[in-house]
C-alpha cells in the first residue's frame, strides 16, 4: 500500500526539477527588472557625466547647455516636497488612524475605504486637472509651490493612508489591551503606543510616497509649472520677527522632472546630456530617500520585535 522508497525518490526528482526551473525563471525575471534599471541608470550616467560638475548644481537654466544648471529645479523640488510632506503626512496618518483605530463598521467608513483604494488608482494626470481647476483658479494659489505641493500631497495621500494602516495593524492587539487595562483612553493608547511603535512603517510609506511624487511630471505640467526660473524662491527664514516667512509658498518654481522634460524637447542635442544629468540627480535623490527609509526601518525594527 505504501509507495516504495525508490518510487518516491523518482517522483521527488521529477517535482524538484520544477523547483529548479522556477528558481531560474524567477531569477531571470528579477534580473530583467534589475538590469533594466541598471542599464537605464548606467546610460543616464554615461550621458550625463560631462555635466555632473559642481556648477551644474549651482547654476540656473541657460540657453547654453554647458552653462545650464539645476539650481532652481532642485531647490524647487525640495520645497515642493516639503509642502507635500507637511500636508500628506498629518492628513494621511490621521486618516489611517481613524480608519484603523476608530472607524465604526458602517456605510460611511465603507465608502471612505473604497474611496481610498480608488484614489490610489486615480491617474496622476487627473490630479493635475483637479489642481488646475481647484488650486490654481478657484483658490487662486496660482502656479506656486503651494499648488504643486498640495497636488502632489493629494496624489500620495492614499499611499500614506495605506502604509499607516498596514503598520498600525502590525502592532499586536495585546499592546492595545495592555494600555487600556492600565486605564488609558483611546487617544492615549493611540498616541502613546500604537503610533510611536508603527512609526517606522509609516515613515517608509511616506518616503515611498514622496519618491513617487518627486518624479511626477504630468500633473505638474498640467498645472503649468514654469520652466525658465533664474532665481530662487524667498528664503523661509527672514531677518525680522518672527524669523519664519511663508512667502516662498506663493513663489513661482520649477522642479526636476519639468526641467528634464524641457531639456529633452530642445532641438540642440547637447541639452540631452543635461537631461540625462538631471535624471541622474533625480534618481540619486530618490535613492537617497529610499536609503533613509531602509536605514530607519532597520534601526527602528531592531528595537521592536513583537
Amino acid at each position, binding site marked *: 500500500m505504501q509507495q516504495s522508497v525508490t518510487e518516491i525518490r523518482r517522483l521527488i526528482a521529477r517535482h524538484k526539477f520544477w523547483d529548479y526551473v522556477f528558481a531560474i525563471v524567477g531569477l531571470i525575471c528579477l534580473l530583467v527588472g534589475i538590469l533594466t534599471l541598471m542599464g537605464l541608470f548606467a546610460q543616464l550616467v554615461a550621458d550625463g557625466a560631462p555635466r555632473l560638475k559642481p556648477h551644474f548644481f549651482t547654476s540656473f537654466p541657460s540657453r547654453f547647455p554647458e552653462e545650464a544648471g539645476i539650481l532652481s529645479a532642485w531647490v524647487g523640488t525640495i520645497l515642493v516636497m516639503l509642502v507635500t510632506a507637511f500636508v500628506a503626512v498629518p492628513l494621511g496618518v490621521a486618516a489611517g488612524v481613524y480608519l484603523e483605530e476608530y472607524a465604526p463598521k458602517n456605510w460611511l467608513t465603507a465608502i471612505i475605504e473604497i474611496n481610498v483604494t480608488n484614489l490610489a488608482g486615480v491617474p496622476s494626470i487627473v490630479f493635475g486637472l483637479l489642481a488646475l481647476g481647484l488650486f490654481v483658479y478657484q483658490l487662486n494659489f496660482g502656479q506656486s509651490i503651494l499648488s504643486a505641493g498640495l497636488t502632489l500631497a493629494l496624489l500620495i495621500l492614499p499611499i500614506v493612508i495605506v502604509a499607516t494602516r498596514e503598520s498600525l495593524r502590525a502592532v499586536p492587539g495585546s499592546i492595545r489591551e495592555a494600555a487600556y*487595562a*492600565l486605564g488609558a483612553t483611546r487617544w492615549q493608547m493611540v498616541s502613546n503606543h500604537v503610533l510611536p511603535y508603527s512609526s517606522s512603517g509609516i515613515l517608509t510609506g511616506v518616503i515611498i510616497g514622496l519618491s513617487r511624487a518627486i518624479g511626477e511630471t504630468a500633473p505638474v505640467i498640467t498645472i503649468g509649472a514654469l520652466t525658465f526660473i533664474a532665481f530662487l524662491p524667498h528664503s523661509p527664514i527672514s531677518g525680522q520677527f518672527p524669523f519664519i516667512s511663508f512667502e516662498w509658498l506663493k513663489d513661482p518654481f520649477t522642479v526636476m522632472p519639468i526641467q528634464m522634460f524641457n531639456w529633452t524637447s530642445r532641438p540642440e542635442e547637447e541639452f540631452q546630456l543635461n537631461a540625462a544629468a538631471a535624471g541622474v540627480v533625480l534618481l540619486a535623490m530618490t535613492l537617497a530617500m529610499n536609503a533613509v527609509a531602509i536605514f530607519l526601518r532597520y534601526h527602528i525594527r531592531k528595537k521592536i520585535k513583537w
Partner: protein
Amino acid sequence: MSASVQPVLKAESKNLNFYYGDFKALKGISLPVHDKRITALIGPSGCGKSTFLRCFNRMHDLYPGNRYDGEITLNPDGVNILSPKVDPIEVRMRISMVFQKPNPFPKSIFENVAYGLRVRGISKRSVLEEKVEEALTNAAIWNEVKDRLSDLAFNLSGGQQQRLCIARALAIDPEIMLFDEPTSALDPIATANIEELMAELKERFTILIVTHNMQQAARVSDFTAFLYLGEVVEFNDTKKIFTTPDNPRTEDYITGRFG
C-alpha cells in the same frame, strides 16, 4: 494559604450572562470575590474563564458586538461596574490586569511601569521614581533591573517581562488584580517565581486568576471556581475542591478523566 478567617466580599458577579454577538459565552454566573484572597478559575479550554475575567475590567468593550447582561458589583461603593453609565476607564483604573503572554510596551523598563501613573496625570519625576521603585520591589524584580531602568523592556527574559507586567499593574494601586494564565508562556523556574510573588501579593490585593493548570490552582489559590461550558459548576475553598469536590463533574475534571 487557607481561608480560615471569614473574608470580606470585595466584588460579586450576579447572574452574569455574556454574549459574543449571538454566542452566549457565559450563562448566569454568580460568584463572590473575597478581599485579599486569591480566587482561581479553572475549567477546560473554551469554558469561558478568560471571558469571565475580562468582564471585570470591561475589556470586552473594545470589540464591537459584545454584550453584558447582569451585574458585577465592586465594593466598598457597591457600584455595578458593568453598567453602561460607568466609565470603563474608571473601572480599569481600579482593577488592573496581567495577561497570558507578557506584553511590555517597547519602551524602557521605567516607562513601562510609569505608564499607568502617567495616564493618571502624574508626571512629577520624583513621584514617578518612588512609585516605580515600589512597584518593582513588590513585583520582586527590583534587584534584577534597578541598574538598567532605561533599558528596553524587550531585553528582559520572559519571566522577567511577566514580572515587569505585574509591576506595571501594581503601580496604579489597583483594588483587584486579574491574572489570565500568567505563567503559561513561561518556563518552570519563572513560573515558580511568579507563584511565589502572588502569594506575597495577596497580603495587599485581591487576586483573580485564570489557569489551565490545576496544580497551579491548587498551589496558589484560596478559593477555586470550576467552570464548564460557560457555567459555574462548583465554587468552594480550594482545599475542598481538590480533595472532596461536591460535583462529580468537578471530580472527573480534576482527576483527569476529561478535559
